[in-house]
Every structure is written in structure tokens, then in C-alpha cells.
């Protein structure tokens, strides 16, 4: 083998001198704009240890042995079969990430989506006051109520949202997703209170809270408490869910927010791994067996950029790196613990790479993402819909086109036929190694600082991400990085395409305008009519319990939820005990 490598290297040198150089001279170039790879770039490559089989350690080729990516299409004419829906039960289409205005608005939205064929549980987007632990009636947060998601102040809001989910879609028959982090424990406690009222036992509930607080300090910004008490909250949910809720995932952690905030590929991977390590360690510190809880760690999305091959290699490297960490560092025995599970999308383009200039180009971009997704072990998902950057967007047309693009990638281009089709490519294998090594180096640096929590407390991660974001902006301004329609191809010769929505938006703009006032009225009424003596008593007890570091607060949050204690009332007590996070300066 080594002789072969030497031979190849010699041959390559000869090719560069005799073939490449004259060609470049012909073009008037000093350096080649393209590269080529040979077996010399992956010298010593060992298939079994580096790649292996799909569904087997180190999971480079995919976390599952086989993956039925898409539901069987029903061939034939539309109407009748649309109602009956796809065949395989587990592949029933659930609603997309959504939540609008008041609880009533969101309930009605899901009702409408059920009419259109959705059968899954809600994938709830919460408004920022809910994500940051404020009630709708707080004058400090005016303007934000009901924007970017539904507002949840008390259990009453959950009761209303879930009116749509009964009978065939009762709580034990659907899975709910909650994009909630800092107050995740309070929100899941509200869900537990709701299930108790409906007589559904905890062990039957299926849900995934995002519950990934550490990345909020680095990106996205919906933190409340400082990192250390935040980790205590994480521990509480992990221990509680582990004991009582075998079908609820503990976290849906993910690096794509960090990438979206500006991190490089290597930073994204290193920071994500450091954060996952911190969570896993917290479980071990709480006395849990790694194989009892690690299988219910999931990831949200990883990565995101237009550089397709690099993103594919990134996903291969991520799976391998995580598996190695869980196995070698945490001594996991079960392979289920080692899966970087849940990121069914695989590679994608990253929402931050969509443009408002000539927005239909985003469809082209997302199709490139869909190809990357399929080749990286994902479902070939075209994401996001082309009107993503237009804020009011997520028009039904753009969602239809995104779904169709995914279907075309799957059924017409048949990109799902082979697992890890780029395995063994000199380029992809060397790129996978390169990304993993660079990320490992950065991870070691974080470890020296004391891990994810320490490197967030001292502001390292936040500053590094800001620096990378600025570097990217400089490259865009200098023209080193190009974005079509943004910093190139912008002359008057280009046609500025506008888009128009033909189907009305899912959320009525009039209701949208009225949501804040309506929610404030609802909450004022509720606060007047509940048993306020119990509320005061429960909050007093919460303070005492919060002061005891070992106390798991979830059972008490459930009691508070049942008495319609509001989210901010609970958070304010915790703010008193835990303090609030002070962000680091730039």
C-alpha cells in the first residue's frame, strides 16, 4: 500500500508539472482554482474504524442501518387519497414549527392544519416573553407578546391550545415539541399538569423539549439565569424525565443556532460537542447510568451552509465524534447511547444564507441543501421555505414547494437509495478527518478552560462567534465570499424578481394585531379569579425549595401550574434565588 502511495504521489507531481502547469499557463493563472484528491490524501484509511456500516459504531455512515425516509406515495388522483393520508403510521405528517399570538389563535391554527391532513402533535413555537420568563401583562415587554410564537402565561393557555388535541389526537397518541430553553422545566410542568387533568399518566406522554440552555448564551439569547443554576434546571428535568417519562426526550440540542450566529464549521462542532459533554456529565454527576439517559438525548439540527461537500463531511464527522466521546469518555456500553439522534434533516444550507434579494433564489439554495441532506444521511429535506427571510413568510405556497422539492429529491432523483454514498471518496474522507481534527483541537481548548460552562461564563464562546461573524461580513464586503443578488450580479441588467403570495397567510393579520391586547385581558381576568392565597403560598414554598441545591423543582412546578401560577411569577422567584445572567461585553 505504501508503495502505491509513493507511486501516486510521484505521478501526481509529474501530472502537476506536465499537465496542470501548462494548462494554468494557458489560462494565465498562477494557482489552480480547482483541486483534486488521491488515495495519498487518506493514507492509512481504515474503512472499519473510520466509517463502518450504517447503524454501527462509529456511525459515520448513518445512525440507522436502514432509513425509510419518506412515506409511500399513494399513486393516483388526488382528493380521496389525500384525506386518507400516507400509509405508514410513524410517518404521518406532523405540523411544522408553529405558534401564533394567543392560545386561541394557535388552537384554531392547528384545527385548520388538522383539516388539511396533519395528524401529529404540535411543534410549538413560543413567543419571546414566554421564552424569557415574562408574562404578557408586563409593561417592560410590550410589543413582543404573541410574536414569533404563541404566548403561554399559565396552564390555562395550554388547556386552550390542546383543545384541538383530543380523541384520536389525545396526549398519549401524539408527540409534542416545545422550543423552550430557560423556562423549559416550567413549560413541561404545565404539560404534566394538563395530562394529569386529562387522566393521562406521565409514562405515556411523548414529547421533546428543546431544553438546550447553554447554546442560548452563545446564540439566540433567550437565557434567564446564569449558566450554573441553568445547569441545575437542566439536571432537574433530566433526572425527572429519566425517572417518570420514558418517552420524553431530555434535550434537543443543536449547533445550528451557533452556526447561524456566525460560528465557523469547526467552532460549531466543537462548541456543540462541549455543550453535549456538559449535559452528559451533569447526568453522570447526578448519579445516573449513562446508558439510562443518553439514548434520550436528541439533536435538533447541526451545521448549515451552502458548501455542500463540507456540510456532508461535517455531518459524518459529527456522528463519529459524538459516538467516540460517549463511548470512550463516558464509557457507554449501549450503542443507543452513542447516536447523534434526531437530526433527520442532516446537512442543510442554514437559514442565514437565504436572501431577501430575489427571494425565489432561496428555493434553488434549499434544493442544494436537500441534495446535501440526502447525501449526508438525512431525508433529503429542502429547507427552509424560500420566503424564510421575509418574516411574514412561511406562506403555504413556499411550504408546498419545499415539500415537493424534498419529494423530487427522494422519488425522482432517488438520492435516498444508498446510505453514505460518498464513503470512500478521497476528498470526502480527508475532509471528514480534517473537520473532526480541527473541532477536536478547539474542543481541547475549551476543556482546558474548564468545559462549556466555564467558556461561556468567561465569554470565550460568545466572543469567538462574534469575531467569526465579523470576519464573514468582511469577506462579503470585500467580495471574497459571494452571495448572488447581494454582493454580486446586482447590476441593472438583472431582473429583480418579486414574489406574491396567492394563498392567504395561515395566521390572519387582524388577529395578529389584536393578540397582545387580547392576551393581556385574558391574563388579567385569570389572575383576578384564581385562588390567590394558594398562589402566594406556593410561591413562598418555591423560594424555599429553590434555595436547596439538591431539591428537584419539577414536582413543585407542577403544583404551581395546577394552581395557575404564571410563568413569570415562578421565574421571578427563581430570579431572586439564582440571579440573572449578565451578558459579556463585545
Amino acid at each position, binding site marked *: 500500500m505504501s508503495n502505491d502511495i509513493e507511486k501516486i504521489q510521484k505521478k501526481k507531481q509529474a501530472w502537476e508539472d506536465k499537465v496542470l502547469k501548462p494548462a494554468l499557463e494557458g489560462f494565465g493563472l498562477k494557482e489552480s482554482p480547482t483541486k483534486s484528491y488521491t488515495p495519498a490524501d487518506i493514507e492509512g484509511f481504515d474503512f472499519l474504524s473510520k466509517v463502518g456500516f450504517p447503524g454501527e459504531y462509529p456511525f459515520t455512515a448513518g445512525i440507522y442501518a436502514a432509513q425509510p425516509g419518506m412515506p409511500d406515495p399513494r399513486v393516483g388522483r388526488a382528493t380521496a387519497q389525500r384525506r386518507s393520508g400516507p400509509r405508514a403510521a410513524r410517518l404521518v405528517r406532523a405540523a411544522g414549527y408553529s405558534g401564533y399570538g394567543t392560545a386561541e389563535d394557535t388552537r384554531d391554527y392547528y384545527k385548520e392544519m388538522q383539516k388539511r391532513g396533519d395528524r401529529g402533535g404540535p411543534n410549538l413555537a413560543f413567543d419571546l416573553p414566554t421564552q424569557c420568563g415574562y408574562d404578557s401583562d408586563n409593561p*417592560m415587554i410590550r410589543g413582543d407578546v404573541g410574536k414569533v410564537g404563541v404566548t403561554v402565561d399559565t396552564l390555562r393557555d395550554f388547556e386552550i391550545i390542546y383543545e384541538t388535541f383530543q380523541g384520536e389526537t389525545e396526549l398519549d397518541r401524539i408527540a409534542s415539541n416545545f422550543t423552550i430553553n430557560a423556562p423549559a422545566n416550567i413549560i413541561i410542568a404545565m404539560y404534566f399538569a394538563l395530562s394529569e387533568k386529562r387522566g393521562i399518566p406521565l409514562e405515556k406522554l411523548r414529547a421533546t423539549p428543546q431544553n438546550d440552555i447553554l447554546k442560548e448564551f452563545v446564540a439566540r439569547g433567550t437565557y434567564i439565569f446564569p449558566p450554573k443554576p441553568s445547569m441545575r434546571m437542566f439536571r432537574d428535568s433530566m433526572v425527572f424525565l429519566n425517572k417518570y417519562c420514558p418517552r420524553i426526550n431530555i434535550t434537543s440540542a443543536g449547533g445550528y443556532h451557533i452556526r447561524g450566529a*456566525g460560528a465557523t464549521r469547526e467552532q460549531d462542532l466543537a462548541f456543540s460537542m462541549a455543550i453535549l459533554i456538559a449535559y452528559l456529565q451533569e447526568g453522570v454527576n447526578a448519579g445516573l447510568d449513562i446508558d439510562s439517559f443518553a439514548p434520550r438525548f436528541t439533536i435538533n439540527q447541526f451545521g448549515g451552509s451552502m458548501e455542500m461537500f463540507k456540510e456532508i463531511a461535517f455531518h459524518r464527522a459529527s456522528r463519529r465524534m459524538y459516538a467516540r466521546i460517549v463511548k470512550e469518555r463516558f464509557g457507554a456500553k449501549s450503542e443507543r447511547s452513542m447516536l447523534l439522534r434526531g437530526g433527520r434533516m442532516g446537512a442543510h444550507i442554514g437559514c442565514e444564507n437565504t436572501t431577501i434579494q430575489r427571494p425565489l433564489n432561496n428555493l434553488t439554495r434549499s434544493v442544494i441543501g436537500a441534495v446535501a441532506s440526502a447525501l449526508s444521511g438525512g431525508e433529503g429535506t429542502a429547507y427552509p421555505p424560500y420566503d424564510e427571510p421575509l418574516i411574514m413568510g412561511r406562506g403555504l405556497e413556499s411550504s408546498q414547494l419545499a415539500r415537493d422539492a424534498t419529494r423530487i429529491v427522494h422519488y425522482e432523483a432517488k438520492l435516498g437509495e444508498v446510505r453514505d454514498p460518498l464513503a470512500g471518496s478521497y476528498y470526502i474522507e480527508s475532509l471528514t478527518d480534517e473537520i473532526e481534527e480541527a473541532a477536536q483541537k478547539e474542543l481541547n481548548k475549551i476543556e482546558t478552560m474548564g468545559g462549556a460552562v466555564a467558556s461561556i461564563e468567561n465569554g470565550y464562546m460568545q466572543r469567538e462567534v*462574534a469575531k467569526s461573524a465579523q470576519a464573514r461580513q468582511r469577506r462579503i464586503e470585500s467580495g471574497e465570499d459571494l452571495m448572488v443578488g447581494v454582493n454580486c450580479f446586482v447590476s441593472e441588467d438583472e431582473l429583480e424578481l418579486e414574489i406574491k403570495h396567492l394563498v392567504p397567510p395561515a395566521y390572519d393579520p387582524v388577529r395578529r394585531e389584536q393578540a397582545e391586547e387580547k392576551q393581556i385581558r385574558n391574563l388579567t381576568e385569570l389572575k383576578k379569579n384564581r385562588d390567590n392565597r394558594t398562589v402566594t403560598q406556593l410561591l413562598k414554598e418555591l423560594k424555599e425549595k429553590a434555595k436547596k441545591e439538591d431539591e428537584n423543582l419539577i414536582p413543585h412546578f407542577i403544583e404551581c401550574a395546577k394552581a395557575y401560577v404564571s410563568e413569570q411569577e415562578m421565574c421571578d422567584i427563581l430570579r431572586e434565588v439564582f440571579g440573572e445572567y449578565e451578558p459579556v461585553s463585545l
Partner: protein
Amino acid sequence: MSEERKIRVLIAKPGLDGHDRGAKVIALGLRDEGMETIYTGLRQTPEQIVRAAIQEDVDVIGLSCLSGAHKYLFPRVVELLKEQGIKDILVIGGGNIPKEDIPFLKEKGIKEIFTQGTMVGEIADYIRKNVRTQATRA
């Protein structure tokens, strides 16, 4: 006039939106352009922003919001400035602002809106052209 005062810019995040990549990039980028920039950090109320602008004696306030709350928050900042009798601070905004909201915001006194894909250099040029610095105020 012997020492030219640098243009002072407050980059502020009103409301609860935590997406501050843009705000940070603008704050750092305008610094590269020779301006003094102060970044407020997240979750500032309009009151806090106006207070900081006065304390820091800035010439420009740049507001950034991606949550859709700009129609309330941006005009509120201008309103509070007016209440304080401040007329010479240039207020500009950016973020995820739908095109159809821009005329409304301009009518409310936000002088310019820079949306996604704007180059920092372009914003710096705009500021230089439109700002009324201490020198011109005096």
C-alpha cells in the same frame, strides 16, 4: 474644531429578540469605519435605550430587531427622544423588517431602514452624510 470628534453610535437591541449577529457585526464594522460604537446588549426597553443614548452622548441610534416587534419598538424610541426634547440624534433601524412596514417606520421618524444584505460600508456612508455631529450642532 482642532480635534475632530468621532461620530458616536449606539447600537441597540430593543425588545426580547436575541438574534444579535447583525447588531454585533454592525457595531464592530462601524468601529472599523472610524466611528465610536457602543452596543447595548440584548433586551433593552425603549426607555433604557434613550437613557443610554443621552448618557453616552451619541449622534446616532441604530436599532436592530428580528422578532417582528419593530412596529411598536422603533417608533417608541423616537417618541421618547421627542419627549426629552432631543432632535439631533439620527435614528436608523435594521433587522427582519418587511418592506411594507418601511413607509410606516419612516413616517414615525426612523430615518432609514437597512435590511438583510446591506453592506456596513453603505450604512457608514449614510451616517456620515446624514448625521449632525457636535461640531455642526455648535
